[in-house]
């Protein structure tokens, strides 16, 4: 019985791992193909099935004028928008989360929990519902197709995540910590800045990672609110998809777009194994 269970377990884990890795392997293989090896028949292993070329990767750095795909600028746009929006969301979200975790708010029937829920519930908002008014709004104030406009929109997307993670985190930081600081003569801001914040680094990192993930992977807002001036990475890659399907450069650009966040998986795992995440995500 026990042996059978172990066998089942490892079979399942192996199958799932293959399922997860399969599209990546396929993309890696495809990125080294040329027209012939994509379109004649299905090929898998370089050298054995087809002669690998670096063409798919080379076009990524060529300028569009010379038949390349300019992926460098969208890359930096994506990094800029994601990081700026994450940073603002984390700062504002952490402050608000601290307030919601430490003080009591009362306004009519509204209590702390209701305010927290208001923050988090913004995730329910389907992007499409916001995108139509944002489209008209941003075009009225001239921020359509600009990085700044996207940052504003991404704050709505990311701040709920920051509040969600940080409220739970602050709830587990003992209250005595700030009380001692206050007795020692700090004002509330100093208590927060000098005592609570340094003890919340793990929470901040987790919140930061989640903001970066959900900022980086967003496609829809970037797709609707930008056209030609500013392009974010996902929009650029998807635009490649609609042309005559050069699968090699498509795969190469897809791989290079998802690569940076795969590092985040290692960081998340580290925090998970050290037990820091357990509380932060409950």
């Amino acid at each position, binding site marked *: 019985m026990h042996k059978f269970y172990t066998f089942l377990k490892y079979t399942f884990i192996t199958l799932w791992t293959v399922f997860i890795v399969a599209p990546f392997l396929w993309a890696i293989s495809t990125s080294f193909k040329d027209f012939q090896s994509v379109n004649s028949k299905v090929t898998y292993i370089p050298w054995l099935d087809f002669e690998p070329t670096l063409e798919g990767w080379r076009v990524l750095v060529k300028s569009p004028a010379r038949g390349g795909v300019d992926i460098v600028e969208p890359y930096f746009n994506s990094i800029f928008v994601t990081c700026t929006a994450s940073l603002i969301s984390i700062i*504002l979200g952490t402050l608000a989360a601290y307030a919601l975790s430490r003080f009591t708010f009362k306004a009519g029937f509204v209590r702390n929990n209701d305010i927290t829920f208001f923050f988090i519930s913004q995730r329910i908002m389907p*992007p499409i519902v916001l995108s139509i008014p944002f489209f008209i709004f941003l075009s009225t104030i001239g921020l359509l197709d600009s990085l700044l406009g996207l940052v504003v929109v991404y704050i709505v997307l990311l701040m709920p995540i920051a509040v969600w993670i940080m409220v739970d985190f602050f709830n587990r930081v003992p209250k005595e910590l700030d009380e001692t600081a206050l007795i020692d003569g700090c004002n509330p801001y100093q208590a927060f800045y000098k005592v609570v914040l340094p003890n919340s680094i793990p929470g901040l990192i987790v919140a930061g990672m989640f903001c970066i993930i959900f900022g980086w992977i967003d496609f829809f807002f970037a797709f609707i609110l930008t056209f030609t001036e500013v392009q974010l990475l996902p929009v650029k890659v998807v635009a490649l998809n609609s042309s005559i399907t050069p699968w090699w450069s498509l795969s190469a650009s897809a791989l290079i777009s*998802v690569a940076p966040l795969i590092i985040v998986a290692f960081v998340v795992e580290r925090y998970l194994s050290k037990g820091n995440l357990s509380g932060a995500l409950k």
Partner: protein
Amino acid sequence: MNFKHKFVFLFPGLFVLIGILIFPIIFTIRLSLSGWNSYTPEMNFIGITNYIRLFTDDPRFWESFFRLSFLSVTTVILQYVIGFALALMVWREIKFKRFFRVIFLIPMMTTPVIMTVIWRTFFHESLGPVNDLLGNIGVKPILWLSDPVIAKFTVIIVEVWQWTPFMFLLLLAGLLSLPKEPFLAAAIDGASPFRKFVYVTFPLMAPISIGAIIIRLIEASKIMDTVFVLTSGGPGTATETSSFYIYIKGLREFQMGYAATLSFTYLVIMIISLTIIAKVLTKLMIKE
């Protein structure tokens, strides 16, 4: 503590969020009462005409809504079952534990649309590897993207691939935070693994499970990226979800007024149904 300080902490975030959101929401409601389209791009007032059209004369919206419900409920159930199983398997010591944990997390770090672009080549009906490998063992080519029924399952496969890791992460984090005592007690009583799961692990995990399921349902209710790239709602309208339908009405046909009506109705339905689901789940899974 001084009365003023707490507002200094709370208000910047709260007001930024409200400031960004208040306009779009009021605007959507107002827009939904107008006939704004590409012929008359102006904020006229036509009362509830749009709402009457939606409730009496638009089966396509309701179909897309039921399709969305089917897709999101199915994917979330699959994600929960698989995610829970995976989390249980790498919870305790196994070989290469940390390696598997990283692997299981990777898909959620990748951009859904970009991976879907890869999936589209993966499921390509003549040049993709799936049909080729299946062909080697004698299976006829499957119409992954152009058969109305199979296309739904392709969307489900991609969604499960993409988001099971998130479920896995939340559940594993939950498992790792469980107290040790109940498990010791069960071990002393000599409970079998199965009974241990049913009477100890699962009840302890119930609150976390509910949280994870609700979070995933919220996110799944927005399924759009995958469909957009994989099938563009097709074949026909076979994989069209509500968001995608609103997108077509609003930003392709420029029936802004009507799209706003759809948006607002969709949002209200979403909030009501998610609240009900949360209540029901809590009742089902947490027994006193």
